């Protein structure tokens, strides 16, 4: 048989494209509807955060970390302040530790809700999107009443938190957790349980365990490929070793399992928050920290389990109030490299769905 060839279609998807989650751009080569080659292009949202850090003092950089993965900003705060505290050898009060866990896990739930919403939207399930955003509002309200902002929360400080949650925080949190199972049931009914969704996602975009490990994929994408790896368990930070929770792992390696894994993680996060609510001690939320933070000379790396993957900060300190060098290892930036490999041979619609399962946030990708 002769070489099969039809006219190749080169399509420039993004940076302005409805399904590109911001300003991601990929040059996709199509044979009909089949993807034959993908060239991802990043950098449209590059703000030079790593360089900016060198001209900001340590506390001043915290608001910038909000702008990394802006759907789970407390997590970025947490990763950064933990790194600085590790560098300084700082102990923080117990109550602050518990509150950090609560906010981090709330942020995980919020981030995963946005994931479900955008996943549903990318396969045109408009109403599921609206429901997820409706319920995410309640988490954002919790953030707002505590830290004063909804999206760029800026809640963590080196040595603790920006403030004690107000009194109305606890009943609101409890009622949210109580309503959560009902919400998840609704998402399942309208999105996961739908046969069209399952047909769209099951068996699509197989990311094998070996490939995932070789590409150093992290986070839910990795765990959906059957690898039981979670920084919270593998290298517990903060007080995560005190909580009883499972790391959900799925073995399907496909888009559907990557999507469903987020739902499992929401359940586990809710479990952690409940335990933290039960055990939280009274006390201060801020350690004694000098006004001008001057960590000792040295370098440090610390990582946390961000909703999107492993988020690590590497800081080199020269003893001045400003970091000499700061490097961010962001989860989706690494995860996104699976796209040109995994999405090959699938259809255009699958490409959109596979990209959506990565839950890419361009703030984190482009830094």
């Amino acid at each position, binding site marked *: 048989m*002769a070489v*099969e*060839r039809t006219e190749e279609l080169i399509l420039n998807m993004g940076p302005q494209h409805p399904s590109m989650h911001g300003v991601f751009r990929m040059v996709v080569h199509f044979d009909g509807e089949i993807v034959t080659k993908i060239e991802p292009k990043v950098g449209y949202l590059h703000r030079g955060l790593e360089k900016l850090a060198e001209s900001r003092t340590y506390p001043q950089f915290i608001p910038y970390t909000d702008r990394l993965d802006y759907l789970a900003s407390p997590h970025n705060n947490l990763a950064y302040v933990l790194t600085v505290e590790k560098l300084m050898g700082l102990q923080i009060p117990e109550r602050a530790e518990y509150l950090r866990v609560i906010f981090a896990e709330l942020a995980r739930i919020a981030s995963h809700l946005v994931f479900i919403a955008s996943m549903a939207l990318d396969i045109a399930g408009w109403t599921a999107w609206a429901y997820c955003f409706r319920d995410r509002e309640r988490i954002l309200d919790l953030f707002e009443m505590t830290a004063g902002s909804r999206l760029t929360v800026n809640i963590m400080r080196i040595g603790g938190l920006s403030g004690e949650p107000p009194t109305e925080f606890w009943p609101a949190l409890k009622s949210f957790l109580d309503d959560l199972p009902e919400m998840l049931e609704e998402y399942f009914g309208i999105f996961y349980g739908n046969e069209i969704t399952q047909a769209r996602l099951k068996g699509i975009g197989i990311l094998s365990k070996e490939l995932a490990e070789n590409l150093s994929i992290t986070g839910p994408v990795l765990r959906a490929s059957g690898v039981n790896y979670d920084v919270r368990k593998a290298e517990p930070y903060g007080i995560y070793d005190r909580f009883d929770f499972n790391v959900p792992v799925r073995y399907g390696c496909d888009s559907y399992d990557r999507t469903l894994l987020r739902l499992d993680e929401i359940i586990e996060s809710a479990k952690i928050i409940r335990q933290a609510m039960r055990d939280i001690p009274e006390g201060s939320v801020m350690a004694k920290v000098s006004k001008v933070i001057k960590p000792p000379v040295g370098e440090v790396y610390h990582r946390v389990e961000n909703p999107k993957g492993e988020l690590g900060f590497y800081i080199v300190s020269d003893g001045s109030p400003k970091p000499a060098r700061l490097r961010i290892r962001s989860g989706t930036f690494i995860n996104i490299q699976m796209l040109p490999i995994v999405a090959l041979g699938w259809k255009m619609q699958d490409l959109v769905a596979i990209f959506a399962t990565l839950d890419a946030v361009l703030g984190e990708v482009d830094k």
Partner: protein
Amino acid sequence: MNFSVGLSTYLLVGAMLFSLGLYGLFVKKNVVAILMSIELMLNAVNLNFVAFNRFLATDRLIGNVAALFVIVLAAAEVAVGLALVIAIYRSRQTTNVDEFNWLKW
């Protein structure tokens, strides 16, 4: 001059369509265009069938039946023709009939 629409008028329209199709068949290089020309000729024939039926056999529908069969044949012809075009295009990367000078592909 009588402008009433008689049989010969219809037949003349058919003849024009047929000749145009024939012309296209001769001069077009693109296979798809040649298929289109053939469609034109078949339409001309159909028009004649229906016209003859209407004028010369007003109590029977044999012309219509013939036209229906021609439409079926045209559909089959288009399907096979286009399949051939795509098969040839795959190996030769051209739709130009002048370059279809191999008896194999």
